[in-house]
């Protein structure tokens, strides 16, 4: 019987395993070193904040694996011998495979800052990182976070929940403005400050200074300022974790190199999730996708290929979401941080700075290209449908209620949004046609 071995029990590895199991009863072994069971990495912050325990973050009960005949091994794969089709674990165990999936995830970036390995300095990616953070942040007076991405702001919220003062160093001119247009970046920046975070924009880390015991005692910024602190969170992004393929014949660049079928250069060896680098991504698709959603979609496509139905990974209409303290963010389609040639965008923001929407559309045929939503929930399938069908901005605004996914009784902003659009485009005023609610949803 053919033996499928998966390295990594994250969303990519587990989705692959589950979907292969749905289609076949071959032997499946999942080897992972971080935790015994699959858990939700995205929920790490909630463990620290006391919203949940680690147990709550496991999407499946512990009996699930045995019941579905998925063998779990807790251990690290040290090396892969693709000629013999054998992986070696750090305890010396050798496991033979017929097919191998590498789903080894990411590692936190460190950019060679002086002092980056001091005690009290760390990234946040894994469960052990979280446990370390628990110890590192005990009885401290100030924390500094370096790097203004999504993990950085989560870390700020975590520390804030423990009443630990936070200084947040962000290289960009506005928070996350390498992704967000300026208005949105500013809106989130203001919200961060509202929560009492000492946000330092256009500021980089120069050096981390130790005390006599080799623990962090301060940081020095690119402005030359010294900030006293007992904890430094390094959250300047993550990179594919390719340690496991380093001494093998499996090709890697920044990530494990794959084609659109998630196949590596070696037959019967595949890769999925954060650790993957696409050799030739489609236009506007990144080479490396480091998201929960993409990990899941990789796994779904790969399971088909493994089971004989060779399927290209197709990520569909782009979407993503996050939460910045109290402001939820959703995005559908493409919204770039600086306006692209041939694109126009319409932006509405509530005076209270907690709700905003941006719709990007083509300057030629007015078809919608992307949505950014802040403090407003939209229906994914409606947005996808509009983008795929190239619905015009007028059509979308007229039918905005169809996309509204906010809970019942919530204040609706459609009137105000359309009002602003009509003000800016008085030539042919738009009238709202659809109310919110399932009855309006046509797709």
């Amino acid at each position: 019987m053919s033996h499928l071995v998966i390295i990594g029990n994250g969303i990519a590895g587990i989705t692959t395993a589950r979907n292969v199991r749905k289609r076949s009863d071959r032997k499946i072994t999942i080897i992972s070193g971080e935790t015994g069971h699959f858990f939700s990495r995205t929920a790490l912050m909630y463990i620290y904040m006391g919203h949940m325990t680690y147990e709550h973050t496991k999407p499946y009960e512990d009996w699930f694996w045995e019941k579905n005949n998925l063998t779990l091994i807790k251990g690290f794969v040290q090396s892969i011998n693709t000629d013999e089709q054998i992986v070696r674990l750090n305890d010396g165990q050798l496991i033979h495979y017929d097919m191998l999936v590498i789903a080894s995830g990411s590692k936190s970036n460190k950019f060679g800052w002086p002092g980056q390995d001091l005690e009290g300095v760390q990234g946040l990616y894994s469960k052990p990182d979280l446990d370390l953070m628990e110890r590192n942040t005990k009885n401290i007076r100030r924390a500094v976070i370096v790097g203004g991405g999504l993990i950085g702001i989560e870390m700020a919220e975590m520390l804030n929940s423990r009443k630990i003062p936070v200084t947040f160093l962000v290289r960009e001119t506005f928070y996350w403005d390498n992704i967000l247009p300026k208005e949105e970046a500013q809106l989130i920046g203001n919200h961060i400050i509202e929560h009492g975070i000492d946000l330092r924009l256009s500021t980089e880390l120069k050096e981390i200074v130790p005390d006599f015991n080799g623990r962090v005692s301060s940081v020095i910024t690119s402005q030359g300022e010294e900030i006293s602190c007992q904890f430094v969170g390094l959250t300047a992004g993550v990179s594919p974790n390719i340690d496991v393929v380093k001494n093998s014949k499996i090709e890697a660049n920044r990530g494990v190199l794959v084609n659109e079928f998630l196949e590596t250069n070696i037959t019967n060896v595949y890769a999925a999730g954060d650790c993957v680098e696409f050799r030739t991504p489609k236009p506007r698709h990144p080479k490396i996708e480091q998201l929960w959603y993409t990990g899941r979609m990789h796994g779904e496509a790969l399971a088909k290929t493994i089971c004989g139905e060779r399927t290209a990974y197709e990520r569909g209409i782009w979407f993503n979401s996050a939460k910045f303290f109290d402001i939820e963010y959703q995005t559908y389609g493409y919204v770039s941080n600086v306006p692209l040639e041939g694109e126009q965008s319409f932006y509405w923001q509530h005076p209270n700075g907690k709700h905003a929407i941006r719709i990007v559309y083509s300057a030629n045929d007015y078809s919608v290209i992307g949505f950014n939503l802040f403090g407003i929930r939209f229906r994914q399938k409606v947005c996808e449908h509009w983008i795929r069908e190239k619905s015009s901005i007028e059509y979308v605004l007229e039918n905005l209620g169809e996309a509204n996914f906010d809970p019942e009784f919530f204040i609706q902003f459609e009137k105000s949004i359309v009002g602003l659009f009509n003000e800016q485009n008085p030539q042919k005023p738009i009238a709202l046609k659809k109310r919110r609610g399932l009855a309006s949803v046509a797709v």
Partner: protein
Amino acid sequence: MQLVPINGSAEISMSLSQNAYRDMSLSMKAGLGVFGFGLLMLFVSLTGASNDSPALFFFLSFGLSVIGGLIYIVPQIKKYRAGIRNNHIFFSSVMSRGASAWIIGILFTGFYIVLYWFPELISNWIRLVDPLSLILRGKSADQWFLYGTFYTLAVLVMGTRMIVKYRHSRYQILRTSSVMFFQLGFAFIIPSLLEMLNQPGFYFTYFWPLRPYSLWPSDFQNLLAHPGGLGIFMIFWGIIMTFVATPVLTYFFGKRWYCSWVCGCGGLAETLGDPFRQLSDKSLKAWKIERILIHSVLVFVTVTTSLLWLNSYFGGTILGNLSGNFASWYGFLIGSVFSGVIGTGFYPIMGSRVWCRFGCPMAAILGIIQKYFSRFRITTNGGQCISCGNCSTYCEMGIDVRAYAQRGENIVRASCVGCGVCSAVCPRGVLNLENGPSEKRYHLP
């Protein structure tokens, strides 16, 4: 109460609790002080010291506890920004089944046991609410009036806390106001006033089978015996609510129209029980037990009711004592032990909806309608779920919401009471309670 961590078993929770205490504002401390004094006076009253001036002691105990509670709760509007603030819940002994939770559980349970079977032990408390009872009912209090007073005040004060906590959600504000309104008006004031007017102390918000007597022959006889048309109207009301309003409203809105908007048991769970909602058991095993238990109770109450009618039809000649035995066992086992002692007493151990989930026959019927003939569902928003688990953790009914959400499936579950908290705590806006065409409810990816 909005609870702050108080035990420091683990090191972290020690430092946290210090943080949290240091963090309490002056008004919160004052509120706690007043609340504590009120509680103290309540226990002093138990000795009978209050019997000469019950009104004064009613104020000192009940009054000050309520005022203290509100002083503690309301200023948190300023202190904490609106939004989901479940911080430290699993570090708190009270809210995560620590020692304090067991103590509170034992106190709650003990209170129910005394209330049902040894009311003479709390006769001095009953005297305390005499003045209120005289005003509202025109007669002195009994243990049930005392219980009603406790219950209503708990719903009002903790309802205020719920509104403060979820003030960013209009759904939660309206829903909580609704249960507060129905408890105060329909489960406390109106039945009392009816008694004052020498009418049956009728509860317009409880029907068969939650209040099985509503369709029992004995109740019909009592109501018919009452002079004036009100008794007949009440019989009518009970029948209409059970056989017409329940299916129709549940078809349109799901069982939530009752369980989390109107019902008194639900009202207590959604207010006093909110700090404990995360303790419900999410395992598949618990779901299996739930389905067996809740439907057994439904069968039990249906059989009892049928037997009672058969017996009454045959003038008590055929079944003898059987139906009476059924009825009194139902009252003892289900009405007292299950819904009271376990249902509420175990809040800090098993979560806030033990009765609603495992026992309530009304919930069983509403659930069957919701599952098979309703326009209600929780819609999952495409692929946006990150499997974080907040929704499942905070589901008071123990539904593993995430299991559906992460597959992009809508949630159509008999037990869902539509409290809307999963939708509120979801950090990715994945879940939405919606009514709509019933055909496409079970949407699969």
